[in-house]
């Protein structure tokens, strides 16, 4: 390494590739680091070597443990030098090496000396380094210095101590930092901008769990006295948090602190203006009067010369447009000029905002502008645009022609899988929801599969064609496209095409003979699956190729939707052991399971391969069913209809924790009490629950199964069974008393005494409600399902739900009351909407399918009105659902 590191004065004609680190090599630099041990230190040289070491680390090179230790010890020698520049490099180097606890001790005294030195720069940096590498024990020793440093008159020192405090609070030693509250409070008043910012951040973190203290902090600071723009941004964030949390107790009148936020819109720093504008747009239930000043400043940002400002503004307005499209329309002219913005992120955001705020008459003009724009943006942006166009089309169905044309045009152009999938999905949704768009949409899809490189998309489209194609005015024109696939594609697509052909044959009797001919040709395919399918369909369609009507059960086989969740079917099939008895599809539970949270968080973690353990825990319904059928008293109750989620019957942290699961059978109800004994010194024996059913007239107790012994911290179950009228959704209230024999346990030996005392423990009441008789069963296409249901069994009525906290709360309450499965994501109520439609489906006891359409509207400020329409296979059930709501 003869290259001198700093050679500023050399001639600059070297080639462009020249680098002072050319050919640098770890081993050689480590050798060089020996100069740190020289008795006569050369600060310049040492500085250069440290820079080389840092360069290596920066390039991703790693040091072994031994190397790092060696370098660390060598670096500590450099504290002997008085050279400021070198000392700075030493600080950075120590932080990069992040030494282990036993190594830290070596530098502690040097750093503590620097921390108390007269040179501010030493003090500030020594504090940062020390706090970064220290563990708790050392911190108590230096705490006094840190407290002093926080209120030091030098801002750099104060900031160093405050920022270190923020890190310590989050990581190792929150307790110590919390003791600095007084000093930090003093620092908030500092005249130095950054000190104020750091002090405010730390003070808030110290107090963040004390709502009252945060409230006080915000209300005193919002009166003025914050000078730093960064601190002001922090204050705005804290203020919106306070507003959010106080929203519930403050219904009437002006929003607290709104004036402060609005005042910040006139701040001189752009970051504060923007922070305040964004905070206002994100207020819960923001009114248009509150929005206006924020929108106005954002509109000014739109025409700024700085891309960052334009981006920030258009991104925020884009979000506002989702909930308050009308408030953003004022910015439309500025938005349109952003379509040609150099920065494509800004242009995309502008377009999607316009698509949300635009009115029917501007659609055509907008589409023209977008067409030019699509060719020069990346796929990820195009997907955003496609999704925006889809929702636009649903909003203005009359414009479907030009929008569908646009989609089909971009479908023909180059693009990756995700992009194409977004387009195809959009066309499918438009076909489903806008009847007039069906024929042209289907033809676009047909043309697309002629030249589609994605197997997944081809099969999806073929499946969709099979369902929608036969219902069109001229089904025969699709056959050619489908049969072409059988010739030209891979086996997966060919198999899909065969199924689609069969569906046409089944639905359109006149086409049947021709479809037969085509299917026969498929019998010679070289793929097993394709041949198997062709054979199956030729046999099921029947009629030997003549023009005959297809049987109902054949149609059901081809088109019937599987009303069983696939996950459940998969589980049942896995559990099925080949035997004489064939697999019974009716034994598969129909209950829709909400995915366990853990699974959602870690997608793709499912075990693969044969040796892997079975995925996830077995479904709870299966587990319950097994458990109950193993108890002889309950064995003859028949098939388990539904098991409720556990209901707690005790407060948290009591002596005994008990919850109950309600198992509903056709003519019986079984309560399963899960008990946990939380007292180590006790053993419970002969545990039963005495149930008083005097407020549940239709129920009669038939059996109970006590729990023999309940030791500390190992849950056990006791059961009580009731008889009820068969198939009737009887409801009632039950009061419960836990009765048991308690025995003292010697904690040292863990042995129980021989004698016990009988004791009782009052539990909370439990109710059997109508929702317990409803299974959550989803449907894939609500509209279709609704229309196939007999309209004679429809019951419609209107209800006033009285004052409610919000629309969402009212929707949730009704869903919970009915215990049904929300469909198509309609359980989510968009923020600030005044009305909402929610679709529910379920199966009522007696295996009766029920569909519910709920329309909610806000009537006055808080009053919610609801229109309830029920369709079911049995009008008595439709009435029953209304009764549930009427009495709920």
């Amino acid at each position, binding site marked *: 390494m003869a290259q001198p*590191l*700093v*050679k500023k004065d050399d001639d*600059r004609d*070297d080639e*462009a590739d*020249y*680098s*002072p680190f050319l050919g640098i090599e770890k081993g050689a630099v480590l050798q060089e680091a020996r100069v740190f041990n020289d008795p006569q230190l050369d600060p310049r040289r040492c500085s*250069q070597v440290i*820079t080389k070491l*840092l*360069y290596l680390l*920066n*390039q*991703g090179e*790693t040091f072994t443990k031994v190397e790092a230790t060696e370098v660390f010890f060598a670096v500590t020698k450099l504290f002997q030098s008085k050279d*400021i*520049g070198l000392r*700075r*490099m030493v600080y*950075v180097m120590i*932080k990069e090496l992040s030494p282990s606890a036993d190594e830290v001790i070596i530098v502690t005294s040097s750093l503590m000396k620097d921390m108390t030195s*007269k*040179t*501010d*720069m030493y003090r500030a940096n020594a504090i940062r380094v020390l706090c*970064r590498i220290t563990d708790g024990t050392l911190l108590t020793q230096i705490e006094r210095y840190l407290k002093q440093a926080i209120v030091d008159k*030098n*801002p*750099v020192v104060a*900031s*160093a101590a405050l*920022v270190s405090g*923020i*890190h310590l609070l989050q990581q190792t030693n929150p307790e110590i930092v919390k003791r600095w509250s007084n000093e930090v409070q003093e620092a908030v008043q500092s005249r130095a901008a*950054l000190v104020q910012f*750091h002090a405010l*951040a730390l003070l*808030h973190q110290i107090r963040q769990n004390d709502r009252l203290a945060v409230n006080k902090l915000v209300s005193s600071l919002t009166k003025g006295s914050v000078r730093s723009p*960064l601190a002001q*941004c*922090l204050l705005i*964030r804290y203020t919106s948090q306070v507003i959010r949390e106080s929203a519930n107790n403050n219904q009437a009148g002006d929003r607290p602190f709104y004036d402060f936020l609005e005042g910040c819109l006139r701040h001189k720093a752009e*970051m504060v203006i*923007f*922070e305040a504008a*964004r905070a206002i747009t994100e207020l819960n239930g923001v009114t248009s009067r509150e929005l206006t000043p924020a929108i106005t400043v954002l509109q000014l940002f739109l025409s700024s*010369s*700085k*891309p*960052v*400002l334009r*981006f*920030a503004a258009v*991104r925020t307005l884009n979000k506002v447009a989702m909930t308050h499209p009308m408030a953003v329309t004022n910015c439309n002219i500025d938005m349109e000029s952003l379509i040609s913005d*150099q*920065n494509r*992120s800004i242009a995309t955001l502008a377009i999607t905002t316009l698509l949300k705020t635009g009115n029917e008459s501007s659609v055509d003009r907008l589409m023209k502008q977008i067409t030019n724009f699509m060719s020069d943006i990346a796929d*990820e942006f195009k997907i955003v645009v496609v999704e925006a166009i889809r929702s636009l089309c649903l909003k203005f169905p009359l414009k479907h022609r030009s929008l569908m044309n646009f989609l089909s045009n971009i479908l023909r152009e180059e693009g990756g899988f995700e992009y194409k999938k977004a387009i195809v999905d959009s066309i499918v949704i438009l076909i489903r929801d806008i009847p007039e768009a069906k024929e042209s949409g289907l033809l676009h899809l047909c043309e697309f599969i002629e030249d589609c490189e994605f197997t997944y998309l081809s099969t999806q489209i073929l499946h969709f064609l099979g369902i929608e194609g036969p219902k069109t005015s001229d089904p025969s024109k699709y056959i050619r496209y489908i049969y072409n696939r059988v010739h030209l594609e891979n086996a997966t697509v060919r198999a899909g095409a065969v199924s689609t052909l069969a569906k046409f044959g089944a639905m359109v009797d006149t086409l049947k003979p021709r479809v037969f001919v085509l299917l026969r040709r498929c019998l010679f395919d070289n793929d097993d699956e394709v041949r198997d399918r062709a054979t199956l369909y030729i046999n099921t369609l029947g009629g030997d190729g003549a023009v005959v009507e297809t049987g109902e059960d054949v149609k059901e086989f081809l088109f019937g939707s599987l009303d069983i969740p696939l996950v459940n079917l998969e589980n049942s099939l896995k559990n099925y052991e080949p035997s004489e008895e064939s697999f019974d599809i009716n034994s598969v539970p129909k209950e829709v399971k909400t995915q366990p949270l853990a699974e959602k968080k870690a997608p793709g973690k499912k075990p693969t391969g044969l040796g892997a353990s079975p995925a996830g825990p077995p479904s709870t319904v299966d587990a319950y069913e097994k458990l109950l059928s193993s108890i002889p008293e309950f064995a003859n109750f028949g098939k388990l209809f539904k098991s409720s989620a556990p209901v707690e019957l005790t407060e948290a942290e009591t002596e005994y924790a008990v919850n109950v699961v309600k198992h509903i059978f056709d003519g019986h109800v079984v309560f399963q009490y899960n008990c946990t004994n939380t007292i180590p010194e006790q053993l419970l024996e002969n545990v039963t629950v005495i149930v008083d059913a005097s407020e549940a007239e239709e129920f009669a107790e038939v059996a109970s199964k006590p729990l023999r012994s309940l030791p500390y911290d190992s849950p056990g179950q006791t059961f009580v069974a009731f008889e009820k009228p068969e198939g009737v959704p009887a409801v009632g209230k039950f009061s419960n008393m836990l009765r048991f024999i308690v025995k003292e346990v010697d904690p040292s030996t863990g042995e129980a005494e021989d004698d016990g005392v009988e004791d009782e423990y009052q539990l909370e009441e439990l109710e059997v409600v109508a929702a317990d008789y409803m299974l959550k069963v989803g449907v894939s296409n609500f509209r279709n399902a609704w229309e196939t249901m007999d309209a004679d069994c429809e019951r419609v009525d209107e209800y006033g739900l009285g004052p409610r906290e919000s629309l969402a709360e009212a929707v949730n309450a009704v869903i919970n009351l009915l215990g049904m499965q929300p469909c198509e994501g309609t359980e989510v109520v968009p923020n600030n909407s005044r009305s909402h439609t929610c679709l529910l489906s379920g199966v009522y006891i007696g295996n009766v399918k029920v569909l519910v359409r709920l329309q909610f509207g806000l009537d006055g400020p808080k009053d919610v009105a609801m229109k309830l329409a029920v369709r079911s296979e049995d009008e008595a059930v439709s009435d029953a659902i209304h009764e549930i709501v009427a009495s709920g």
Partner: protein
Amino acid sequence: MELCPTIKNILLLDSEGKRIAVKYYSDDWPTNAAKEAFEKAVFAKTQKTNARTEAEITMFDNYIVVYKFVQDLHFFVTGGENENEIILATVLQGFFDAVGLLLRGTEDKKEALENLDLILLCLDEIVDGGIILETDANVIAGKVDSHSMDAGAPLSEQTITQALATAREHLTRSLLK
């Protein structure tokens, strides 16, 4: 939302996307490979844009990236998707201008590598563990460029004199060009 404005990383790359100096403050990229992949993606996405007069901005993978280029130096500052874009831009501008001051007007890769120590110190003075320490370029540069300083004098005074000197020099150089 993260209440305190947080910087995820600061990058200084060359005109081929290679590292000159980078600093990560978040665990979002645990390995060197992940970091390099991020840098590659950022570079590829921004390479063709013109971020020479004004700082530019982009969003990807749920990160906001603000960036500015001069000669063959590419400056980037990354924040989370909910971060205030203007705060990020302020940090970027502070870094950008401080490097300009420290390199005394000759801002290119060669000069940057030759003064890598100054640039590393500069990064150290701008952000500490994700929290913004300082955004004023003159103050940052003043704190870094203390080689010529007398160890005994208090820093605050030095900073101002030093900053003035550097600023003056910077100005003269730009006038002479």
